[in-house]
């Protein structure tokens, strides 16, 4: 575990960070990501809470989450489950309603997003008082692990097409590791209509449209070790549809 320099000076401002973790069948991953978040945040001294939004996972993710709540306390781990799988976009909205922090982290619960990027994002936000800081796989020493050539090609191709058509002023549009000011997120979420991958893209495009400031930090994306991907084969179709929708409406 290298290159982790935590500045020991206690942050003494009133900022609080709410981490939203939407889960669907993440029984193996959830304890690990929670453990990592707790560890890093406790070391850093920042105020935080972790909000788990489980959509009635049949694998018993919620049971595991309840155990975690017992271990780490109800002030640290908040459970905001929903009865059925209602999708990622609404999961964020649902979680956000219960967030008490003035900043909100959004990340996947499948360990693809490495917890140690939380602080670079956080620092970047402070640096420029950005409204939104987005993790990017496409710049600097950001990158991916476990992707074959085909997936890299699709990812880069889709990204290029999006850059050409929308000129969004951000390099990673479909990434979902981001830090928002809570007010900004509330405002954006109201305006966003799409779901899945496209939701993330719409958020950042609308952010630009509303003249919010966007910062970027390179992140690494490690393909999930446990569990299954929820995004099915029609990923590309819905991506293109969403891209066209944004092309005509924004």
């Amino acid at each position: 575990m290298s290159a982790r320099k935590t500045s020991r000076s206690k942050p003494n401002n009133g900022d609080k960070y709410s981490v939203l973790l939407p889960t669907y069948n993440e029984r193996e991953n959830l304890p690990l990501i929670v453990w990592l978040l707790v560890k890093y945040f406790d070391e850093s001294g920042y105020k935080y809470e972790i909000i788990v939004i489980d959509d009635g996972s049949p694998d018993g993710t919620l049971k595991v989450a309840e155990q975690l709540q017992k271990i780490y306390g109800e002030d640290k781990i908040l459970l905001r489950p929903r009865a059925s799988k209602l999708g990622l976009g609404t999961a964020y909205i649902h979680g956000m309603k219960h967030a008490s922090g003035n900043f909100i982290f959004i990340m996947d619960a499948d360990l693809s997003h490495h917890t140690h990027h939380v602080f670079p994002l956080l620092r970047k936000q402070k640096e420029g008082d950005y409204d939104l800081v987005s993790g990017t796989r496409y710049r600097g020493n950001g990158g991916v692990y476990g992707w074959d050539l085909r997936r890299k090609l699709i990812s880069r191709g889709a990204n290029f097409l999006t850059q050409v058509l929308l000129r969004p002023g951000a390099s990673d549009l479909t990434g979902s590791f981001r830090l928002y000011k809570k007010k900004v997120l509330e405002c954006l979420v109201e305006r966003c209509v799409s779901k899945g991958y496209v939701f993330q893209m719409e958020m950042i495009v609308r952010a630009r449209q509303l003249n919010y400031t966007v910062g970027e930090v390179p992140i690494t994306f490690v393909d999930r070790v446990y569990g299954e991907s929820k995004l099915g084969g029609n990923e590309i179709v819905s991506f293109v549809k969403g891209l066209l929708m944004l092309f005509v409406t924004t």
Partner: protein
Amino acid sequence: MTKLMEWLFGISVVLAAWVLVAFDPLDLSVPHTYREVAWPMPLYLLVSFGCYSLATVGYRVATFNDCQEAARELQGQIKAAKEDLRSKGLKMCN
């Protein structure tokens, strides 16, 4: 202005300029050589843009970072997390 409109606007400006030079409908007496050069321009532009796109995407795919180190670090952390969580009494499988 939506992105679609920006594009349509841009394309019409370019097309108008092209028509003006290549076909000289307003009788501006554009020199013949200019007209000959201008005529196949749209095709040139399209082809070069295509090449540029292919080259860019190809280069970016080839230079897409493989984060071996991050994956290794994660493996280590998973192990540590599992041990610690077990000692705190978490039952991973019910």
